[in-house]
């Protein structure tokens, strides 16, 4: 193992890890936003909007994220959408993650006992109030852990933007593998940084999950 080489290139990996973290944060925010919109659509009163929500989830979960990125980044200009690679990465991954989060959030909401909603309605709360004041606070506790799984997947999925040349961790590793022919060393550098990010996020999710439980 070539330790000298690793010591020489690691600052570039650190910098790239910063970009991976930034990508993950922006993607997570956009994903959560899309997820909430998706759930609202899937639980809508109107059949057409419900259909749109279901189609969003089905199509974005049913095709590779890489292809979705390519459509947005390379195909976008044809329909008048000009994005640089970073923007395309955030939007593409965020909308994709949103489809998965939609299902996570919906799963938590529909697992709340029907009686809760009925009781709230009987007490005179409107449909919206029942959702907002009774169901969501209970469902929110259930979704922390599965959303944490989504987050974990999302961090690893940010590697895909290497394919559209965003200089994040995987792209950096790929570039140095190509120029140094030391794949194992470069994998180790990038891998350790990914593991650190994922470990810290995982601990955060566990902490939050414990914090929101009632018992």
């Amino acid at each position, binding site marked *: 193992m070539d330790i000298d080489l690793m010591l020489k290139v690691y600052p570039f990996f650190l910098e790239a890890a910063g970009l991976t973290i930034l990508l993950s944060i922006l993607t997570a925010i956009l994903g959560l936003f899309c997820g909430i919109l998706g759930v609202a659509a899937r639980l809508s009163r109107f059949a057409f909007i419900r259909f749109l929500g279901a189609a969003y989830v089905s*199509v974005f979960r*049913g*095709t*590779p*994220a*890489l*292809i*979705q990125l*390519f*459509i947005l980044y*390379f*195909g*976008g*200009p*044809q*329909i008048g959408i000009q994005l640089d690679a970073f923007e395309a990465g955030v939007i593409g991954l965020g909308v994709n993650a949103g489809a998965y989060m939609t299902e996570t959030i919906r799963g938590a909401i529909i697992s709340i006992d029907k009686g809760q909603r009925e009781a709230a309605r009987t007490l005179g709360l409107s449909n919206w109030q029942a959702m907002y004041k009774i169901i969501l606070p209970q469902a929110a506790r259930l979704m922390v852990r599965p959303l944490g799984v989504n987050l974990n997947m999302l961090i*690893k*999925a*940010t*590697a*895909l933007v*290497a*394919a559209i040349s965003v200089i994040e*961790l*995987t792209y950096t*590793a*790929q570039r140095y*593998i190509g120029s140094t*022919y*030391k*794949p*194992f060393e470069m*994998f180790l550098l*990038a*891998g350790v940084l*990914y*593991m650190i990010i*994922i*470990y810290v996020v995982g601990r955060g999710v566990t902490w939050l999950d414990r914090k929101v439980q009632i018992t």
Partner: protein
Amino acid sequence: MGLDFSIIPKHLDIILLGCAWTIGITVVAAIISFFGGIVFAVIALYAPWIIRQPFRLVAWVFMGTPLLLQLFLIYFGLVQIGIDLPAFVAGVIGLGLHFAVYNSELIQTAILSVDKGQMEAARTVGLSRGQALRKVVIPQAVRAVIPPIGNNMIALLKDSALVSVIGVSELTLSAQRVIGKTYRPFEFYILAAAFYYVINLCMEWVQRKIERRISHSR
């Protein structure tokens, strides 16, 4: 530049060939990941400490890093140690091993949840520990995890697009090749997405059939 879907039929043969490769890669990698998952689960649970602990560490690394990074490691790493595999083989192995690790986690939980009495009964009637595992415990465990493994296989189909990056001519790279000639990225990536979506729907259909059969036979 507007959209022109009428040029698709002229290049459909290349895309269809890519589609066949994607299906082939998915099937072979799925088989590797299924049996690899069982082997990994047995190692992680029953191998001696000196093998088990390092193995678990490697599995943990494979679950904590992106598949794309692992593909680069396998493809270029094997070349470094003198094994020059074709991209196709490296891609299938990478995909198969990656999902074998995920399947192994499912199978481990399932093996542990098989009633202890099953193992004891098998030992009592004279089976060795290995035989009891192979013939009594694992078949029951595997049956319990078929639905979640099905989800992994569908994820595998979608992640098979990543092997295009190391140069395997599957659906995604075929689309890229056609785009290189026609400069029509939108049309052909949409077409590729449509093919992935159809294969995905077929897999979900098969998964539902299998799940129904399993729940009937219980």
